[in-house]
């Protein structure tokens, strides 16, 4: 058969990472990214892009750890290369502080990030309201630069990108052999997944370049993540809210909470407010499906529902999705790749 044609729906961190992995595992494939939004208008662009995993209740921990490890290793190598600044990937150190000592003092990812250890008494003095803390060094993927860099890498390998709103995956069955669904929160409408729900996050992006360390409250609600040009202040976790409009009361609340953690933020300028809907699910939907109508079959690989943890598992889940794409291709009629798997 001719080069298999793969469509990736979605151009956030998951769509672009998945497209990249597919070009690596299936160099003969023709890959096209289709999305109604590209950077800087994706959900990923709102996120700080910190590599601090979110725990999915429905996925075994060893799998999540493997995904995180693959992602961390991949990004670590780029952060250490001349491309780092263009890719928007950089190391950042800081503190995760808790008002009450957490049940699990050692998260599953503590040996993947760098230099993880409990905070000393002296370090905790900076946070009078908190009794326990952890300090470590991790990576941050600043968006838009990171997404734009992924797009550039994809274009260099011949991947096409088109702005297109896909209303139904079946619409693509005549143009493509396999479709990969990385539609994020869009999957709610696209495939009618009732298990997928938004968790609304409002953030502020501010100018405060003297803030060099991240600070995160272990409750996940208040965080300060210094990026290349702006510091992301957060946030909210509003389950079930679909509103993309910034709320002024929330803005003030976020700013106050962050200043309380880091008084140096009081001098912050140029506050920009953004809202994103985390595409949340008990577990990432990472599986094959075959759509079938009138005897015609159309293989689909789903890779969505990463919620608050997309950046942290982007590479691991993308590799698995690419592997599933490989399986789909091998089962296509007339596939010469069947023997290779």
């Amino acid at each position, binding site marked *: 058969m001719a080069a298999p044609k793969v469509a990736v729906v979605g151009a956030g961190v998951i769509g672009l990472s998945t497209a990249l992995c597919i070009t690596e595992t299936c160099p003969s494939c023709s890959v096209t990214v289709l999305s109604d939004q590209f950077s800087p208008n994706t959900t990923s662009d709102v996120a700080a892009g910190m590599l601090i995993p979110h725990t999915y209740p429905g996925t075994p921990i060893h799998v999540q750890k493997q995904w995180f490890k693959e992602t961390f290793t991949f990004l670590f190598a780029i*952060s*250490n*290369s*001349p*491309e*780092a*600044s*263009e890719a*928007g990937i*950089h*190391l*950042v*150190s*800081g503190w995760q502080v808790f008002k009450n000592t957490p049940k699990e003092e050692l998260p599953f990812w503590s040996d993947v990030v*760098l*230099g993880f*250890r409990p*905070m*000393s008494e*002296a*370090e905790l003095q*900076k946070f009078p309201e908190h009794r326990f803390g952890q*300090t470590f*060094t991790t990576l941050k993927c*600043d968006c838009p630069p990171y997404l734009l860099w992924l797009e550039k890498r994809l274009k260099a390998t011949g991947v096409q990108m088109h702005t297109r709103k896909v209303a139904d995956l079946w619409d693509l069955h005549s143009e493509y052999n396999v479709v990969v669904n990385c539609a994020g929160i869009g999957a709610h409408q696209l495939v009618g997944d009732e298990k997928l729900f938004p968790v609304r996050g409002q953030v502020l992006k501010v100018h405060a*370049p*003297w*803030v*060099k*360390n991240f600070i995160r409250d272990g409750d996940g609600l208040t965080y300060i993540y*210094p990026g*290349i*040009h702006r510091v992301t202040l957060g946030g909210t976790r509003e389950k079930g809210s679909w509103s993309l409009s910034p709320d002024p009361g929330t803005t003030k609340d976020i700013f106050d909470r962050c200043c309380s953690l880091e*008084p*140096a933020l*009081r*001098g912050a300028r140029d506050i920009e407010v953004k809202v994103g809907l985390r595409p949340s699910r008990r577990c990432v939907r990472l599986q094959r499906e075959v759509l079938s109508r009138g005897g015609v079959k159309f293989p689909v690989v789903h890779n969505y529902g990463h919620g608050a943890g997309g950046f942290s598992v982007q590479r691991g889940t993308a590799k698995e999705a690419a592997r599933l794409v490989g399986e789909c291709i091998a089962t296509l009629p007339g596939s010469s790749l069947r023997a290779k798997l």
Partner: protein
Amino acid sequence: MRVAIIGAGVIGLSTALCIHEQYHSLVPSLEMEVYADRYTPHTTSDGAAGLWQPYLSDHSNLQETLWNKETFDYLLGHLGSLAAKEMGLFLISGYNLFTQPVPDPSWKNIVLGFRNLTPKELELFPGYSYGWFNTALMLECRNYLPWLSNRLTQRGVKFFHKKVESFQEVSGDGVDVVINCSGVRAGELQPDPELQPGRGQIIKVLAPWVKHFIITHDIESGIYNSPYVIPGSEFTVLGGIYQHGNWNEENSAQDHKTIWENCCRLLPALQKAKIVEEWSGLRPARPCVRLERETVHHGHFQAEVIHNYGHGGFGITIHWGCAMAAARLFGSILQEKQLASPPQPRL
């Protein structure tokens, strides 16, 4: 009582402020003047990146270690204040790298979270097999010196743009106490063969993705002769030059090449950084800081001089401890002149 401070770098201005804060209410007649041929942004202090970090070894100079600690604690106490941003003060974490294991420094318990580097962290720095991680402070003089100047101006301290040629020049004019914070050129006021320039050169770049300081060490070539990268609030400073005895304040093309190549090897991402400025300066190097009193005579006049110079490449690191020590010496002068009651116990 007239007090003249010679020098308007970090040492001169902080000593002036420390003394004024402690004694102006005790000595209503206190009049303070600052004399300097260079003011911010043209002082030696302005060229420093501003990282609080002493040298690796204190040469058993426990006094200096204590002054370093006093400075760190003083600055740490100001971190949460509204003044911090204006002072140019903020926390920063980073790496010290070595090609072999070394003993822990005297300041390991002064900084926050001091620890050895893990093998995975060392992978970031090929060629280095040992290192430390800690959180310290940055105090950028481009902000701190103007902040000190503002505080002093508010207190009525007068500033004169003048090169003082001798102590007698000011003491003969009726000044009772001279505080000598003249840095690398103190030898022009009074010969001091122990004071030598430690010439440094730096390149300022735009590299806002760098969030950590990285200081490498080469035991053979000595302190600051090995590349370092220190991110400020706006620019990142690249350096690694220390030339003892070199008085040349001109930028050297050879040194530029050394700094650039070494720092880019250390942090490949720097290759894409835009160069904004180049600067050379003379660290006022001395085997130990000269912080002591001296009575200087000129005909019938005599003046008390408090020397506070020779802080090498750690002036910012040690400045407040020295300012406090100088203030204590000032207090003893006042006592002798019976101008103030015995000093209250104070830190």
